[in-house]
């Protein structure tokens, strides 16, 4: 029946669509010069992969793919690109010239391997993409049961590893650094800088706090009159 054939064909069409999208986004990611375009292409790759997982009847893995990779990790990448304002790459670095033959070689090995696998595995795999009998692989309950019973130790060890990475990152970031956010309580009042004549001076880039300290030093040395009580309250 034509209807049945269409149902057989649909997973193939979806696979070609999402697989093609994943490949296209991956190529775009490598080829782009602008780092933000690369990041957006990588998000496209992750979302196409999630759609492929859905066609393979693994909805939980698809959702986690989107939440963790597209939703969390890539947001941080985009965030860093925005914060650092990474410039567009103007010309290719010279070292890439030596990497091109290596890349071609590795790609050839990968293609050869895939061909070999397809040749060996032919006949063993079913002709259609969807398994004929329902399987619980990739469903939430089966993954949860597996993760918290059979694979509990690897799961816990992985979380310790991630915790170590987190602590390490924080230690590296905080080493010899002042707090990033200039919030009240974070900013210490600096002593006013002195000019050659010995009097305090202000420079561009001084904060309001140094300005206040400067004014206080002026009042203390008698250069300026102390403000009225109302102004002093405002200052605090």
């Amino acid at each position: 029946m034509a209807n049945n054939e269409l149902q057989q064909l649909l997973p193939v069409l979806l696979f070609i669509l999402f697989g093609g999208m994943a490949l296209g986004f991956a190529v775009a990611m490598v080829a782009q010069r602008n780092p933000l375009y690369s990041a957006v292409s990588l998000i496209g790759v992750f979302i196409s992969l999630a759609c492929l997982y859905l066609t393979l009847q693994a909805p939980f893995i698809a959702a986690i793919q989107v939440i963790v990779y597209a939703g969390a990790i890539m947001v941080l990448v985009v965030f860093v690109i925005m914060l650092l304002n990474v410039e567009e790459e103007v010309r290719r670095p010279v070292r890439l010239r030596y990497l091109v033959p290596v890349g071609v070689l590795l790609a050839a090995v990968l293609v050869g391997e895939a061909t070999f696998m397809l040749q060996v595995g032919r006949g063993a795999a079913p002709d259609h993409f969807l398994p004929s009998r329902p399987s619980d692989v990739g469903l939430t309950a089966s993954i949860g049961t597996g993760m918290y019973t059979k694979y509990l130790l690897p799961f816990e060890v992985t979380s310790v590893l991630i915790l170590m990475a987190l602590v390490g990152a924080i230690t590296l970031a905080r080493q010899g650094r002042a707090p990033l956010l200039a919030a009240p309580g974070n900013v210490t009042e600096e002593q006013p800088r002195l000019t050659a004549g010995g009097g305090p001076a202000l420079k561009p880039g001084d904060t309001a706090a140094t300005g206040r300290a400067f004014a206080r030093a002026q009042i203390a040395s008698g250069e300026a009159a102390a403000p009225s009580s109302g102004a002093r309250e405002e200052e605090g």
Partner: protein
Amino acid sequence: MDWLSNQIGPDWARAVGQLIGINVGFIAVLMIVAYTVLAERRVLGFIQGRLGPNRVGPGGLFQPFADLLKFIFKEEITPSSSTRFIYFLAPIIAITAALMPIIVYPFGPRVWLPGIGYFHLVIARFDIALLYVLGITSVGVYGIALAGWSSNSKYSLMGGLRASAQMISYELSLGLSLVGVVLMSGTLDLYSIVEQQGGWGGMRWNLFDISRVPQVIGFITYLISAIAETNRVPFDLPEAETELVAGFHTEYSALKFALFFMAEYVNMFTVSMLATVLFLGGWQGPFVDVFPWLGILWFILKVSFFLFLYIWLRGTLPRFRFDQLMSFGWKFLLPVAIFNVVLTATILFFRLR
């Protein structure tokens, strides 16, 4: 429906039914959004002792359409030094990510219609509905972040950075405050979660369910982080007018601005629906088991309560400072949400033993 399944088979009939449902759902949500905007302007007016828009149509009822026409006919301005492709992509991502989750919310019980038979009042029902909602919501951040970056304006960039930092931070406590409900229900399927809240005359909502664990803490943390997640007052730092002009959408005009505006209200609506479904029993309420169609009314009433709460808060509260916002999210809300997960899990462990 039977005629359709005879023609093209039951699977395809279901697919056609869902396609129609999705389109009807989108149109319904956009209409609701239009009238939420009007309701916001009128209610804010009454809170502030003025009338609000009441000229177009009876009581201002056609005001949303007038606004839409204005948006369509305004001049499209594109900043000359913007990153063109991403500049146009950002509003598309924002509105798509806002509209996609609406298909999974159950808005009524199993009902009967002549010619169709029994069916569930939910457009798409699947195993991982809650994770789907969280996943699509987390993709929505890109709309705002990319809009801020691609406009090539310092106000937009600061607004985009603030918005994405805020959304990443509050997404954690949002997700964690839902874990309590998931632990109680043992499923991620929203329809089953609502079904389990039946009983006690339709009032056995997860919020008060003392036979398991009442999710009061989870509800409060969810509500606060949902307001922050949708960038609404008092967490509307990304578009603080006094500091940032209009935040990430400063450089957007005409219909592109309207897309961001709509996305914000659709997000408001979806987080209200999620709160209703998870904590307030969705369509459950008195007399639903006698007369199933009443479920839709209860659902609409509960969602309207949350929408009204949003507007009420906007008329009442001042804005946070950015460092207060961050330390509140990370140092208070997140630990409380984690505490709720531990508490719920512990009590459930001893009750179920």
